[in-house]
């Protein structure tokens, strides 16, 4: 019996050694240790043994079972290891091959510029106001203090849908609507599409974009106008940016000014971007004209405010160094894909 068991063990270990794949390893276990396995069957013959022999053989049988199990698990580890090695060998790739293409996309550079400007003013407590592009002439002109006989009202300058309805030439009518509909204090910006009868060329387009801003409150001063717009310029173009306010004239404001910023390209030394002046004209602004306040139902003796307006297309061109306005409206992918 003892011999028989030892032979069984040796056969089993030889079989185990011959196993080369994990999936056949279990066959060996079943062959020897399974319900109908050789060891199991052998142990069933133990009943015939004497009571002296039985514990000895029993012990041996257990030892052999343990040895076989250990060997199976050792062999399993070995085979698993081999299998992983083989897998790694097979699966190595040329990691320098290009990655799979994912399509890029991005916002139009004008939108990116507008978003940047919006963020700056939102951070200063402004809200975004919107209004119709096809607008009553009185909102576009009369309420904004534009004289009745001003040439801006001519058919050569402004698109008309009807005698009293125009395509707005500025986003200022939005300010009128806000002043008429809401009570001060007001702090709004109004970006949007505007129209003027200009043939399209490198610097003009009949369709273009503006952003205007309006602040109305008690005790708003010209100093506040300067402080706010100076801060805006620094946030848009960088801390080192300086501003220059020059007197100007707009019907909507009095006093009025134009604001220049130091050229962000050359820092004020002079270059192509700033036509060698070191300065770039960026916006028009001023204290809201008392006539406008009155027309919009706000008492100019109680409230004051300032307004500003800038051309978004031009800022976009300047910011990215784009030389021709028409590129913005053409939508050639080779253009669009340049702006991340």
């Amino acid at each position, binding site marked *: 019996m003892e011999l028989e068991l030892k032979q069984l063990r040796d056969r089993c270990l030889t079989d185990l050694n011959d196993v080369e794949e994990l999936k056949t390893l279990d066959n060996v276990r079943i062959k020897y240790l399974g319900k109908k396995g050789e060891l199991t069957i052998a142990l069933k013959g133990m009943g015939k043994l004497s009571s002296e022999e039985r514990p000895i053989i029993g012990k041996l049988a257990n030892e052999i079972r343990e040895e076989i199990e250990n060997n199976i698990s050792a062999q399993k580890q070995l085979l698993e290891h081999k299998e992983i090695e083989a897998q790694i060998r097979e699966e190595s790739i040329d990691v320098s091959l290009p990655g799979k293409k994912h*399509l890029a996309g991005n916002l139009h550079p004008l939108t990116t510029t507008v978003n940047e400007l919006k963020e700056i003013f939102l951070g200063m407590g402004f809200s975004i106001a919107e209004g119709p592009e096809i607008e009553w002439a009185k909102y576009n002109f009369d309420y904004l203090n534009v004289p009745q006989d001003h040439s801006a009202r001519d058919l*050569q300058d402004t698109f008309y849908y009807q005698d009293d309805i125009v395509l707005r030439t500025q986003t200022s009518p939005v300010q009128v609507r806000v002043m008429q509909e809401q009570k001060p204090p007001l702090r709004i910006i109004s970006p949007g599409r505007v129209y003027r009868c200009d043939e399209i060329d490198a610097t003009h387009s009949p369709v273009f974009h503006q952003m205007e801003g309006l602040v109305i409150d008690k005790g708003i001063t*010209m100093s506040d106008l*300067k*402080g706010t717009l100076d801060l805006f310029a620094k946030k848009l173009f960088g801390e080192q940016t300086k501003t220059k306010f020059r*007197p100007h004239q707009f019907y909507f404001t009095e006093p009025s*000014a134009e604001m220049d910023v130091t050229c962000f390209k050359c820092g004020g030394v002079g270059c192509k971007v700033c036509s060698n002046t070191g300065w770039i004209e960026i916006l028009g602004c001023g204290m809201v004209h008392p006539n406008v306040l009155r027309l919009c139902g706000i008492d100019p003796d109680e409230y004051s405010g300032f307004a500003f307006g800038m051309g978004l297309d031009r800022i976009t061109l300047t910011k990215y160094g784009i030389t021709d306005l028409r590129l913005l409206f*053409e939508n050639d992918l080779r253009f669009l894909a340049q702006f991340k």
Partner: protein
Amino acid sequence: MFVSLNWLKEFVDIKIPPYDFGEALTMSGTKVETLTVVSENVVNIFTGKITKIEPHPNADKLIVCTVDMGTDERVIVTAAKNVFEGAIVPVAVDGAVIADGTKIGTNDFRGVLSYGMFCSIEELGMNTDLFSKEIMEGILILPAGTPLGMDARELFWLNDVIIDVELTANRSDCQSIIGIAREASATLDLPMAGFTIYAATESSNQIADYLSVKIEDQACPRYVAKMLKVKKIEASPLWMQVKLLNSGVRPINNIVDVTNYVMLELGQPLHAFDYDSLQSQEIVVKTTTDKKIVTLDDKERNIDETMLMITNGQAPVAVAGVMGGENSEITEKTSLIVLEAANFNKGSVRLTAKQLGLRTEASSRFEKGVDPELAGIAALRATHLLLEIGACEVIEGLIDVYPCVEALKKVNLDVNWFNAFVGISLTIAEISKMLTRLFFTVEKISDHVLEVEVPSYRLDIELKEDLAEEVVRIFGYDMIPGTIMGGETMVGGKTPVQKFQDALKNILVGQGYYETLTSSFTSEKRLQGLNSQREDNLIPLINPLGEENSIMRHTLVGHQLEVISLNYSRKNPFGQFFELSNTYRKNEKPGELPIEEQKLAISSYGSEDYFDLKGAVELLLAQSGIKYPEFIAGGSDFLHPGRKAEIFVNGIKLGEIGEIHPVVVKNYELPKRCYVCQLSFDALFECSSLDNKFTDLPKFPASNRDLAILLKSDIPAAAVEAIIRKNSGEILESIDLFDVYTGAQIPDGYKSLAYALNFRHHERTLNDNDINPVIDQILSELKRSFDAQLRE
């Protein structure tokens, strides 16, 4: 407007360098665009008189001139044809440099030495645009009496700096040398010199024997006339010509030059008539029923009864404020002139000039507004100059029809208000001083209020805010401190709609779509390309820029197709685009503005098919919190009839999607397969739900069942899905169509749809008893509705 710095200096003693002066003017409100020296290069050109002309011994085309240079005599050889004995000309002596930088030396012309050369206008560096071709190409002949040996730089003001100023619309008073001089005086705090006018004591009113003036229209507030006898019509003196040239005006003759000179100097347009050609003893300012007038530029112009005319009582002799008539033009035969200095309404002149398509120096000044007070002064200034240059003798008396003289405006300025408004603190004395510098008459009427009398020419000053700007621009905008706004704290921020707009764009960008920017205009013709019926709710413009921009677009599709067409024609192999923009249509409600509706258009060509675009749209909707969109076959005519769908959510139509119709592909020169989806932004927003709410993760396992359904090919998958959903109740967690199969084992005209259904209950584990009845119900409904079979 061009301003001669030398001329300005006759009124204000400007000592600072031109650049600094330009900066100072800009910062006080007169924007200086450019500063240009007339001619930087020219040196050593002097005046000389040709005393003798002899033929060249060896060359037919050359002549040999002896020239008196004042201090010496020299020989100049020239090929010029317009020189003559006695002519005074500019001579570039050896060592001279002409305008283009060329150095002039002594040259041997076929055996005769020439000690320099005669110069043309161009070689002097003067404004060549203003001269006729003959004068341009010849040697410049100077007026008799010009001193000899004079340096051309001084004589022709070649060192003058021409200042190009951009005037704002409200400062009509700055359209003159004295206007800018007043600004210079105020800006630099320097005194201002006056000018001489004709002020002789007259003993008669001789003019009454010749002329009377009547104004019959309110558009002419004042008409001043002075008459003069002409001594000789000739070129005006060089100093006058040079000032005109440096102001961009062409010299013509002494009479016309004086009228232009005074217009440039004082800003009052003047006109001179030939008295005899008037054929009348009266001038009447009125509108007429005449149909035509020939203007000074020899053009016949159509006139009508809305235009103000200067007439001889019968026929028009000038278009008021715009241009004189040829019938009363000054000629060499003119012996008596009527000098007109009148004031016309800006609106009237503007409309007339616009209707005639004729803008002149005079009309552009009147359009902006001219001070009526100026007419009288200007007439006397011109009279003085005509006498001074010896062109005329005076006829005594002056006609001045000025029915309604306006009193000077007075505006009060409260110093406390001013300081609070600007955010600075100036004393009443400081403010008073600055206003005085600007020629306001200031009177202190209390310890903090100034009464300010406004000069007649300051048509722009009406309110205290106007005065505030005056003070601040002299004080210096750059001197105002910058402060941070006080008052209530304001939160600001974006509205939900604005946030949703941003979200939509970001989702599409994330999926590889490029945002486009297209114009709002379209046209009948462009819309016809879309294979659609003519819309009757469009917004046509009264005054479009051409037919192709004549209508406001009611759809974004056409523009998306134009973007694809452009990219395709430029050999970009594929593209994915989107635009969120307004569309426009008629409002049926009377008295309301047209309707503006935002739409979102998404388009693609090249590498994609219908299902790629649909997948992008489905993801967009899912990301917007829009559940169970239905894609139902159908849609507009620009889409392929077999490949188009309308998109609905809960019965609300979001828009449509599909492949572009082959006819439209041809019309727009598109690649064969293009896909477009257009959605209504408002509908999207209404159906969206961007609120994120957390629900607990499921605690009980899901049960999966796969169903392969065999049914007729023409039954839409969406209908099958709808039945599955309707019959599954609450326990259906998800449904996924993972295979559409036709081919072997499937009869012709049939297809197999394979769905993976996922069931889950939130409170317990589902078993077959829960799910089997549901599956049975689904199958029997599918059989009943579509005669569909379960495929085993």
